[in-house]
């Protein structure tokens, strides 16, 4: 097959995804689909379908989450394998709540720990799905190919910063852009405020940086205002505010000052805009009553960083349509997942933090009638070893992840859930799992929901053509 023929087939495949009437949430699916056909026929980039409002939220679990314990095999044979492999890290069967349906092979059943009950609720309600054994891949890979090494093995596996970068950008640290930002590049023209296309509530992350889109960073309590610019007179002078503005925006001739001033200008531009919009966004406050956990300890959502980030994102989503926004990509994060030690002690709290915060967020959006407009997905540096070091687990590779929102076809586990035992065809060593689904496919499925056609996804996800499944099917 020559290259141009393969290229054509790939586009045809993308055409099906674009034109198929499987986008019920879109206001004008057919028209955009037809436009897509015309553009494809001409070999042009397809204009993204940006009707309605949609928000994609990346929930990043920093450190490499041990999801082996989030989704646990519960049929007796599999649970025994799991317990053997994990040793002291394994969750006993009685602390797991079985999932009613998973779509995995007959005879297999799965459960989630009690700490994750607030998420399991949404799973059972059909608004949350699991994607199993997903991870960094350049192309589909066998264990033998991994052992042989070479260019098909993703670079710098098991390294925190590089795999954080790979998950977010599909390249190791130093990548110039991430796939959330690259989606933003293609979607920003639909937004009345392009500056707010890509928004982080958790600091600078490559995920949200596009080739042209710059991420906007929002504090947990909204934008910070420069107080002195609003004061009539200070320090004996009525001109302080005007002079401060001059100082802040006086660009130097070197790149450092130029970029510093650029950020200051963006800060000034957005603060006024968002101040009113966020104040008017009808999102409830975080509850101050402690939530008692299965372990006996408790947490308060109004003191949880992740919940605070999700609340400001909920406010942004609620304000989005009023600001003329149609497509937005957000990022929130939580830390502490690098559980080399004290995993049995720490993991229940980590789970409860995520589950309670996500539950609050989904409930808030549902209350605002916006749940169908938002898809939240989890990401993390890597999975972890099945084996224990006695106190915790080490850096791994493939892992299980979660997708939640009104458009999610939930109550299902997507992908092939591996046998959680050592020495299998997916165990490269110590229970580091060879991923059977790639981050690229995960991203493509999310990008398609955001309205991107196949050829656009190819620009966002450079290796998409290496994979068979550009749509994993977990989104309606």
């Amino acid at each position, binding site marked *: 097959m020559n290259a141009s023929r393969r290229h054509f087939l790939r586009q045809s495949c993308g055409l099906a995804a674009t034109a198929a009437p499987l986008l019920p949430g879109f206001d004008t699916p057919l028209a955009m689909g037809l436009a897509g056909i015309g553009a494809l026929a001409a070999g042009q980039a397809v204009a993204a379908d940006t009707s309605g409002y949609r928000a994609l939220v990346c929930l990043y679990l920093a450190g490499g989450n041990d999801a082996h314990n989030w989704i646990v095999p519960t049929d007796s044979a599999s649970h025994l394998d799991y317990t053997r492999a994990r040793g002291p890290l394994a969750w006993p069967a009685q602390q797991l709540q079985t999932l009613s349906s998973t779509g995995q092979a007959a005879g297999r059943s799965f459960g989630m720990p009690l700490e994750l009950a607030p998420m399991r609720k949404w799973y059972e309600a059909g608004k949350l799905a699991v994607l199993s054994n997903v991870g960094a891949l350049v192309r589909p890979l066998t264990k033998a190919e991994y052992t042989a090494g070479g260019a098909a093995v993703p670079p710098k596996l098991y390294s925190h910063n590089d795999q954080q970068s790979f998950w977010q950008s599909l390249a190791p640290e130093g990548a110039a852009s991430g796939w959330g930002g690259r989606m933003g590049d293609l979607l920003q023209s639909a937004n009345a405020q392009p500056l707010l296309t890509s928004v982080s509530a958790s600091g600078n992350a490559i995920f949200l940086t596009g080739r042209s889109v710059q991420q906007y960073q929002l504090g947990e309590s909204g934008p910070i205002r420069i107080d002195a610019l609003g004061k009539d007179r200070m320090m004996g002078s009525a001109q302080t505010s005007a002079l401060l503005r001059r100082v802040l925006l006086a660009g130097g001739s070197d790149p450092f000052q130029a970029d510093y001033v650029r950020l200051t200008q963006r800060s000034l531009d957005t603060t006024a805009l968002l101040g009113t919009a966020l104040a008017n966004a009808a999102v409830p406050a975080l509850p101050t009553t402690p939530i008692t956990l299965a372990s006996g300890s408790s947490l308060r959502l109004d003191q949880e960083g992740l919940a605070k980030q999700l609340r400001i994102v909920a406010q942004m989503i609620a304000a989005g349509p009023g600001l003329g926004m149609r497509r937005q990509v957000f990022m929130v994060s939580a830390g502490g997942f690098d559980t*080399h030690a004290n995993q049995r002690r720490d993991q229940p709290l980590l789970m409860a933090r995520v589950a309670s915060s996500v539950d609050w967020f989904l409930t808030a959006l549902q209350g605002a009638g916006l749940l169908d407009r938002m898809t939240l997905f989890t990401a993390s540096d890597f999975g972890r*070893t099945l084996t224990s070091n006695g106190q915790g687990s080490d850096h791994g590779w493939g892992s299980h992840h979660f997708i939640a929102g009104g458009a999610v076809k939930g109550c299902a586990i997507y992908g092939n859930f591996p046998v959680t035992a050592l020495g299998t065809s997916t165990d490269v060593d110590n229970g580091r799992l060879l991923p059977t689904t790639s981050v690229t496919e995960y991203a493509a499925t999310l990008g398609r929901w955001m309205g991107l056609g196949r050829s656009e996804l190819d620009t966002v996800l450079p290796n998409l053509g290496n994979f068979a499944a550009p749509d994993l099917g977990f989104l309606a």
Partner: protein
Amino acid sequence: MKPSSFLRPHAASAVLLLALLAGCGGGNAGAVHADALAPTPSVNTLATAQAAAAPGVLTVRAKGSLYAGVGPVMVVRVNQQVVGSVEVKNTADWADYPFSLPALRGGDQVDVVFTNDIAANGVDRNLHIASLSDGTTVLLPFTTGIIIDRGSGTAAFDGLDLLPGSSTLASNGALRLTWPSGPDSAASALPRRKEAARLLLQASFGPTPATVDALAASTDASWIAAQMALPATSDFVNAVQARYNLGDAYRPGGDQYDPSEMARAFWRTAPAAPDQLRKRTAFALHHIFMVSQVDANLWFHSRAYAHYLDLLDRHAFGNFRTLLEEMALSPAMGIYLSHLRNRKEDPSSNRMPDENFARELMQLFTIGLQELNPDGSPKLDSAGQPIETYRNADVMALAKVFTGFTWGFPDGQMTNDKFGWLDPTYTAAADQRVDLQRMKPLADQHSTAEKKLFTGKPWAVTLPAGSSAQADVKAALDTLFQHPNVGPFIGRQLIQQLVTSQPSAAYVGRVTAVFDNNGAGVRGDLGAVVRAILLDAEARTVPDPTSADGKLREPVLGLLHWMRTFGASSINGRYRMGWQLDPLGETPFRAPSVFGYFRPGHVPPTAAFAPRRATAPEFQILDENSVAAWANLAEAMGAGGLGWVDNTPEVPGDYSHLLRVLTNAGVRGLLDEIDVLLLGGRMSAGLRRTLTDAVVSVEEASTRSHLDRVRLAVFLTLASPEFRIQR
């Protein structure tokens, strides 16, 4: 010179300007910036004889009170020649009156004369003068050396009936002054003071008047030598111990126990300590050898953490190999990267050694991920690809090296059955200070397997089966220490911390050469490396204004700079500034992970950096919110200080030095001193104009408001990008 040839046109231009000002809203000339006024190309009818000296404009900012609808007449003379005359009619706000003249030279006698005083029936015509400016030099009438000579006509210049300079001429008379000359004795020292301040920005937490003078009177090399000779002080352990000494309530487990004593000790000691270079270097090493208090497992072990920070101080100018071993066996690091209590493998239960420390020891603390040339560039294989320094098998082998270690209890106290749980006791009665000891191995818990490191590389080594933990650690650290990557990998990061985000390959190469051999055949001499970094031509040369040399200073360094320069310390010892610092994205000793506050390889994804793939680590924590938060912090610092207790800043700055400078040396002296102390002598012309405008914009025209002038200038300087960017 023929005065008549330029008198009229220029008086006319003053009137013209007033008309323009009135036209744009009430004659509030104060809103017109100096940069709009200074270069006014006035009508030039000068004879060519004057062309040699550039024509100038003397701008008098004035207002008046009227009598019978007539304002005070203001006559300006330079060297007894009248250069202009104008009636001042604005009464509420200040207005600028420009007088063109051939040139204003140092030593010229300037008189501003009030000629039509009258007072009757409670109405008094007076002239008020806020400032005189030639566009670069600004004089305030109430500055030392300026006088008022009262009297009419020639009596205004007779040297009789004198008053100190003031902004108000309440009776006929002249405000008389000598225009400051160019470089005076203080100014001739200025270039060297600027150089000194610039080095102090790189090599300390900030310049102070005294250290600038001391360094200016010395040489860079001898200052560095003197700094390195100062002994290390165990500030952090001493601070924690002082709390512990208050009783068991202040020790771990007690209700007064507080691990944030670490940050308080830092704020208290770092800005004030004499051994600035050591502390600045240790703070740089802290970024590289990160142990963060964010890890809750360290919460109970404050003194162990304090000991780790002191260790960075103590070995800042020592040998890298020693530092490496101290760091690797420190219990704080053992807790943070979980090799404290790391057990050997147990195949029967699928248990494997913890890989955490082994991986980061290579990736972050010694050699990094890619083989490097001495100049820091990646080595490439025959296919042009970077070469990985290690494989996962190396991580697993090195993990076995670091098995068997736990707290360094006195011999005999640690046993196999206690290995998994025994922590030191910290009550005063039972405290053996085990947390101040290196970790010790328990032989039975150490992996005796053969460990092969770097198989296939020139520096491959096999640690034979049955080796002791001590022998394994020594061999592994020796191997890592000798790895050719260490010089460029660590050297480049230290350059980024101290001098510039994007050092040239040649600069890195020169520093690597010193790391490899300090000149006396010693590898890893950190003192020599720091000296080489600071004395390198690339560090000492002031960068071209458009070049990419330099760095963004992280928020903590900006804050420490203000504290040190203005002697700020807490009035109650609490240093409760967290609410002001949190939005800045950096809290001392609370980096989010072992990857630090920001990554040395961070390339901002913007046009200024991305196309060149230029690293600017500190930009990773700079965003729309943290720039705004910094401006708010600058306001607080300028206004007086940080924190808030009993209606006053808890951590106040002392502006008395700048007040003295303003009083004695005027506005130019103030701005020169701010330039030296806050900007290392790199103040741009634009910022100087803005600060000049700021100083004269303070309405209350007297020395009583000098503090406002200083505060305003400090605030705006701290808020400026020029302060944040070190160049």
